[in-house]
């Protein structure tokens, strides 16, 4: 059963209270112990592996050495035969036979080592996969438990649990309202700034005698006077 299935069935289990341990504390401890043991076994297996690999290398070197030794004695045996030293050649042949037997033994040992290495590597791969799987399961279990306990703390700090989360719709309304309010306020502030900004400037301009309003009185008077003068001139002409 995968860890996800285990968590799901734990969560679905009989009306459980949030905060109650989602994962059996005892099971968690067993898991942690298993991980610890698997890691120790892994370390041992890796140490064994290096030892066996060293032995394999040593066997290989020995096979090579014996091979050269055999070739050397074969040369000697041939030389003895050339000199018709039958008895000496026989002695050398005996030595060669011994060396060959020794080489065969080393070759068998090397094959055994190779097989041992392969099975150790298999073991290590399996142990590593097991550790990874246990660690992952533990992480999922611990995370689940942790978020449930955190939620319990959060609920308690909010008051009477879930009810204090408030109605979702009301929350949304309040956030929206506040958002609109802020937006309205910002708009009002902009308008205000624009209005007061312009008026203040116009006042300053007028005070300095600049702009349309500055000489309005004089302009009106001049216009009226000009109109009166024009009216008089017209009536003078008629008379």
């Amino acid at each position, binding site marked *: 059963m995968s860890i996800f299935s285990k968590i799901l069935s734990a969560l679905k289990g009989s009306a459980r209270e949030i905060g109650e341990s989602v994962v059996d504390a005892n099971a968690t401890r067993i898991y942690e112990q298993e991980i610890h043991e698997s890691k120790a076994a892994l370390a041992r297996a890796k140490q064994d592996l290096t030892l066996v690999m060293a032995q394999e290398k040593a066997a290989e070197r020995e096979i090579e050495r014996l091979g050269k030794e055999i070739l050397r004695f074969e040369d000697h045996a041939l030389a003895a035969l050339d000199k018709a030293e039958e008895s000496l050649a026989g002695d050398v042949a005996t030595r060669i036979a011994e060396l060959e037997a020794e080489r065969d033994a080393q070759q068998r040992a090397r094959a055994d080592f190779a097989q041992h290495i392969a099975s150790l590597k298999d073991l290590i791969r399996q142990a590593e996969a097991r550790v990874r799987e246990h660690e992952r399961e533990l*992480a999922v279990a611990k*995370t689940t438990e942790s*978020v449930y306990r*955190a939620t319990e703390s*959060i609920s308690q700090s909010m008051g009477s649990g879930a009810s204090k989360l408030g109605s979702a719709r009301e929350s949304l309304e309040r956030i929206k309202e506040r958002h609109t309010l802020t937006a309205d306020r910002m708009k009002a502030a902009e308008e205000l700034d624009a209005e007061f900004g312009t008026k203040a400037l116009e006042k300053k301009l007028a005070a300095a005698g600049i702009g349309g309003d500055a000489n309005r009185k004089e302009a009106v008077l001049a216009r009226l006077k000009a109109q009166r003068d024009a009216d008089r001139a017209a009536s003078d002409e008629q008379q």
Partner: protein
Amino acid sequence: MDAALQQRIAEAGRRLAGQLGAFEVARIPGEVVVFKVEISGREELPIFITQADSQILCICYLWTERDVAPSRRTALLEAMLDLNIAIPLSSFGRIGDKYLIYGALACEAGADDLAQDLLALSDNAVDALEAMAEYLH
């Protein structure tokens, strides 16, 4: 470690102040270390930050089972599932009877990562609440 996390959250808050508004961080009493982040203007949607095993979880509770209109419950769940992958940096979830949206970060995440996640999460929470309102009472 807890103090370091609180410091990172506060630093993330300073970086976000311009975009999100004032940021208040407080530790919640309880056996598990949980920090509550309240964002000015979004007080209804506080974000809770807790370290769970190998990750930092930033959680924002959205609504409870009681808020869900029973006749639209399946449609709500489907909508959440459909939307889940499109939501930037956050995912929907549920703890007990509480529906939530959350972001997960590696334990060594810095203030910048936190700031990015919190900004996305807060925006996502408001959007999610608005989008899902039609399935709620």
